[in-house]
């Protein structure tokens, strides 16, 4: 009887472990997704901030290499 209980408990335990693992993985995925969405949702704000700092640093107006290459037909 005891042995059966232990076996059932073991089964329950490993199922619990699996579900915890799954939940961690889901949370991780969600946080990555959230982070990724922040990266892509507000890139301009971050870039604008960086550009304002560039002006303060006497660098003048900066632009991304991507924009420059597009405007010159190089990309």
């Amino acid at each position: 009887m005891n042995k059966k209980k232990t076996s059932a408990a073991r089964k329950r335990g490993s199922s619990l472990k699996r579900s915890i693992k799954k939940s961690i993985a889901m949370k991780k995925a969600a946080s990555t997704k959230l982070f990724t969405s922040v990266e892509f949702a507000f890139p301009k704000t971050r870039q604008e901030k960086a550009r304002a700092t560039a002006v303060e640093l006497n660098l003048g107006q900066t632009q991304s290499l991507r924009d420059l290459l597009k405007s010159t037909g190089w990309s």
Partner: protein
Amino acid sequence: MSRLTSGERQQIVDQALVLIEQLYVHLPLKRAMHAVDPIQRLRLLKHRLKGMSERAFHNEMISIFTRLRDLHTNYVLPEPFRHLVAFLPFRVQEFFQGSRCHYIVTLVSPLVNDPYFKPGVIVTHWNGAPISRVIEVIADREAGSNAEARHACGLEALTIRPMSMSMPPDEEWVVVNYRDGRKKRESRFEWEVFTPDAATGTLDPLSATGASAHVLGLDAKAEVERRVRKLLFAPEAIDVERTVAKKYKQASRTAKTLASDDYFSTHSIMPDVFSFHPVDTPNGTFAYIRIQTFNVEDDEGLVHEFIRIAGLLPQNGLILDVRGNGGGNILAGERLLQVLTPRKIDPERLHFINTPLTLKLCEKNDFIGQWKESIAQAVETGSTFSQGFPLLPQEKYNDIGQTYHGPVVLVTDALCYSTTDIFTAGFQDHEIGKILGTVKNTGAGGANVWDHELLSQCLPGPNSPFQALPKGASFRVAIRRTTRVGAHSGVPIEDLGIAPDEIHRVTKDDVLNGNVDLFKHAGKILASLPVYSLLVEVQKVKGGSANVTAKTRNIERLDILLNERPRESRDISSGSIRFKLTGLPRGAKLLELRGFQKGELAACKRINL
């Protein structure tokens, strides 16, 4: 944005052919040393122009020029690229732990958002590739003339690319993996582009004008990179530049009156050129002067400012640091040598390549007229190069004489180029002191460089071989090669460079804590060298006489010369001597005291009476 027409591209290639085939002084050397054939590549490019994209055309032009492995000889892209620089907002430098090289972030701009990405983090990967491999690949695209120079250029190009002469980065952003202590992290950075301003008092590295334009020896790209680093990471240095400019403006003061201002006991009146301070080492306190550039219009001003700041510092030894100095005005570099040695300076010789076009240039322009005869003789002699002459008569390199009498250690690296190579070669050839290199060679640029505009001015007119280039495109070309003097007489600097006496591998403490280990090493060398001193006071008295007091150290004999003629010789038993010079002739202008130790000239002082 307007693109180059097919005709304009052809015009650019034709002008490149004129420069490389008929003027480029290192062509025989580069063909031998690097097995390149730029002329055939240019002809092929001309043949295949049709259907080529704008980017492919510029890439091929840049590649032809960088494969010459010559930082002097460049294709300068037209607008808008001519003045643009692509950058990442941090700097990576290398340091050694034993024989292992690591790459460390040393400067971070406020533009960086990642709070963990700060000076001291170790870069391991770049876009997924090991950082050392990435630097190797970038270095191969750079023009450095030896392995050390290419590696150093590659490391600089990792985060800064002047688009006037470099291919733009292939990637629009980079993903950097780094170690912050034991933690491994990753950050992403976008390449940004901007137009840097120019420092006051310096020459435009891409198109210098004025009297100094034909005496330049400069790695233009290094000069642009230096400016960008200053703007990105050293706003306080920009503030100093502005303060000095303001002080100049106030009551329109000159350099001489300005120097009496207290501010200039700790700052140079040429803040873009010099920085200085005393340094403490376990072997004593020594003077430290960094020369960031020789790129100035006023070579005499640079020499006098050096004399002033060296006078403010300890006289028992000088650490003279020219690392990262891409050169500039050759006269500034060569004329500076005299203040560090009692020996007469024999300047380097400059040679043209013998071609009908260099002959024509010398025939039509008086300032290079002395080269004409030997180029014309080449028809009979078959010589590849002309006879060599210095830029100025020899007296101009010896018109001030020695002012610093302590021992000197010169610190070099692989980014020392052109005028700095010439300065370093002169330092070694005149046995001024020891050279401490962070690598086993300098950048190895031995030439005088002219740009296309200057060439057009030298041979103007509709029949000139130099035709206007479209949309601000240009070229720079090594036109006169330099050869060494003294024990290395006749040896070219190009590609060979100058080997240091000792090597100091840069440590982590050096890059993060102000060169502490480097100073320790330099201090040890200085402490092993003899210190000489020769302080002279002259008081003119009536009747054509003068009282002379000389305080000396490690000097046994003084020879006294008047107007460069021997007058008398005196032995010195104690450290000082007083004597009267009588019967001074009218017109006695120059008094020179030469101090000897064991029969060897050890110190010299010139006084204008």
